[in-house]
């Protein structure tokens, strides 16, 4: 309070002003201590020495328009005074952010480009409060968002209850997507296989380990498998590219191919919750097993032993307690013909 009193009595002597130019060309001046509250402006002044005259006004980023600038300066003018209590500041802040949502967004953007973090946090909090608890329709209404997702796409994100009708619908969607992707692959003239369930573990591991697929143990590779290696790689690569455009990572080999994609390119946008839940278990452990044969130092070996032990223990304990049809008991192999192979066995298969 006393500072502003002093300012009234000795105006010209006390204040110095900073000149600022917004992207639209208009130039403003503001008291120095207010402007210095913004880190970006502060930096410009100190490092480049601009701002002291009209001709050398500081150019502000594009996201700051004159209206927002004056709002921001109101904020700075209040907060840069050290004498204010925390309670006063809170009360001011609550009143300050009462504005329509569009202005709030503009203000956030402007504050961010001036690096004024306290104001960004304040406006973000306000925006979060607006979004919180509202239905998507309400949120779209408030922020004028286009409703441009397909109905199927809207269904994908996490649901708490997977009712049967939904599962059926999803399965239908997957089939549809599979078909789409297949058509796309055909355009790229890559062979596509229909069913993969006899995909052997060794093929998968060898692919993961990056070895030439043809070097896989002959006892495991039937003619069928050999023929499949080329297209297998091709498909994986194909889906890698395809998925960049398309949000769905599904292809004709839902189980293993997707997993391979995951390990190969760590794409996050798989929406196939059901089958993925089972799949992540098998391949990841296979992935680790692939290293067990190599020369590794004892500490790492012990760590891997423990992980295997953990996994075995887990499997022996409470899988029975798992609920629902979605979670089937883990298969050690991805073979569709159902014969399980022990982990050590598949690791041995690499030798």
């Amino acid at each position, binding site marked *: 309070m006393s500072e502003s009193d002093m300012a009234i009595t000795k105006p010209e002597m006390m204040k110095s002003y900073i000149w600022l130019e917004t992207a639209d060309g208009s130039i403003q001046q503001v008291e120095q201590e207010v402007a210095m509250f913004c880190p970006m402006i502060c930096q410009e002044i100190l490092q480049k020495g601009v701002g002291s005259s009209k001709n050398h006004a500081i150019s502000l980023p594009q996201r700051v328009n004159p209206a927002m600038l004056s709002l921001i300066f109101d904020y700075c003018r209040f907060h840069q005074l050290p004498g204010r209590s925390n309670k006063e500041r809170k009360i001011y802040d609550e009143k300050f952010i009462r504005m329509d949502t*569009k202005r709030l967004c503009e203000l956030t953007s402007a504050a961010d480009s001036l690096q004024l973090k306290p104001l960004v946090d304040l406006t973000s909090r306000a925006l979060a409060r607006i*979004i919180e608890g509202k239905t998507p329709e309400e949120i779209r209404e408030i922020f*004028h968002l286009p409703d*441009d997702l397909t109905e199927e796409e809207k269904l994908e994100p*996490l649901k708490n209850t997977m009712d049967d009708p939904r599962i059926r619908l999803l399965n239908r969607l997957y089939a549809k997507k599979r078909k789409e992707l297949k058509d796309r692959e055909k355009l790229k003239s890559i062979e596509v296989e229909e069913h993969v369930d006899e995909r052997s573990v060794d093929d998968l591991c060898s692919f993961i380990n990056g070895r030439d697929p043809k070097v896989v143990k002959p006892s495991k590779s039937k003619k069928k498998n050999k023929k499949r290696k080329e297209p297998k790689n091709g498909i994986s690569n194909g889906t890698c590219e395809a998925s960049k455009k398309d949000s769905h990572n599904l292809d004709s080999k839902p189980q293993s191919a997707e997993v391979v994609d995951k390990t190969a390119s760590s794409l996050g*946008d*798989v929406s196939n*919750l059901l089958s993925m839940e089972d799949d992540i278990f098998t391949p990841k452990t296979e992935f680790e097993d692939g290293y067990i044969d190599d020369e590794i130092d004892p500490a790492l070996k012990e760590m891997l032993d423990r992980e295997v032990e953990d996994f075995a223990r887990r*499997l022996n304990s409470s899988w029975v307690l798992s609920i629902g049809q979605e979670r089937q008991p883990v298969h050690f192999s991805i073979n569709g013909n159902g014969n399980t192979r022990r982990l050590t066995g598949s690791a041995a298969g690499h030798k």
Partner: protein
Amino acid sequence: MGESTDFISDLPQSIIENILTRLSIRDAIRTSVLSSKWRYKWSTLTDLVFDEKCVSPSNDRSVVETSLVRFITGVLLLHQGPIHKFQLSTSFLQCRPDVDQWLLFLSRNGIKELVLELGEGEFRVPSCLFSCLKLTRLDLCHCEFDPPRYFKGFSYLKSLNLHQILVAPEVIESLISGCPLLEFLSLSYFDSLVLSISAPNLMYLSLDGEFKDIFLENTPKLVAISVSMYMHEDVMDFEQSSDYSLVKFLGGVPLLEKLVGYIYFTKYLSIGDDPGRLPITYIHLKTIELYQVSFEDANEVLVLLRLVTHSPNLKDLKVSASPIQLFPLEEEGFDLFDREYFDYKLPRLETVKMTDVSGIRNELEFIRFLLGTSPVLETIIVTSSLSDKDAKMDMVVELLRYPRISPRAQFIFLQD
């Protein structure tokens, strides 16, 4: 036709994440159905906080459990990029293989803050946790903690909170020593723990449990200590040690600013042979709160006096006098107070609160001591556990009689 373009979707991702972080994880993920631009905005959030409110409530526990597991697994799968904070606090999940899987996933995605508060059960922390070497914060509750031999500690860990953890005591000690940057340590719900704490950067210590013996071996930077010490029935064990516990525990904390002790803390400190003066003055100690101080035990009163007289900048003192006696003691003489204590001054003491005062000699003498040594004392609040009105009146009269060297000192008597 409608209107303007949307004014939020094109804000920088850092702002969007700032906003989404302030929503519950469920609301944040629901933004993915807003529009095509919003589909994956949530998926790079680095802080994920889960509890049973993420899923629809249900009377059937197992339904909640399954849907929560599915929810979390789904989130982790759809997530992109590093995950810095993962918090799961729910009693609905106990020992489930899924938790192991999540921890494995997190260990490969740069986890820095891990908070795992599960329901009671025997969840054994998987070995992948010990390879999360970037951890800065670890909170575990209701788990079994058994690190492998090669585990040396988390070299970046700043905050460790273990609550009701099944773990070997030497493991805790080596864990603490293996985390050189540790600043905050909280151990609660332990049985018969004997612990020697060596943590050169430790600033905040909170202990709650049945500790047999604690030695703060190397904790020079401690600023705040809070201890709830439950005691064994066999108090005999305690009598055997000859080192003065007060010195063992509080002898090496020169920067201490706040000390809080519950249950048997003062009794614990009083064990051992009193060497006379303390080797240390607590020049930063401003707040002392000691509960369940047994004023009938002269040793405990001595501990209290020592602490108070060695804290020249003490500002707030709170003492709760309700005695939890393991076995009743003869009320020992109050000649403690006739010694040199009145030569001390408590130059900064402003507020005193004495609760559960039952009017025994030592309590009254202690208050007399405070009144006679604190020149800037402002308020002294006294609550009494006496039910007999006359006894209470006598006590009040006695207290009001005592000379006060602070002209502003005021008594406030409150009903319990």
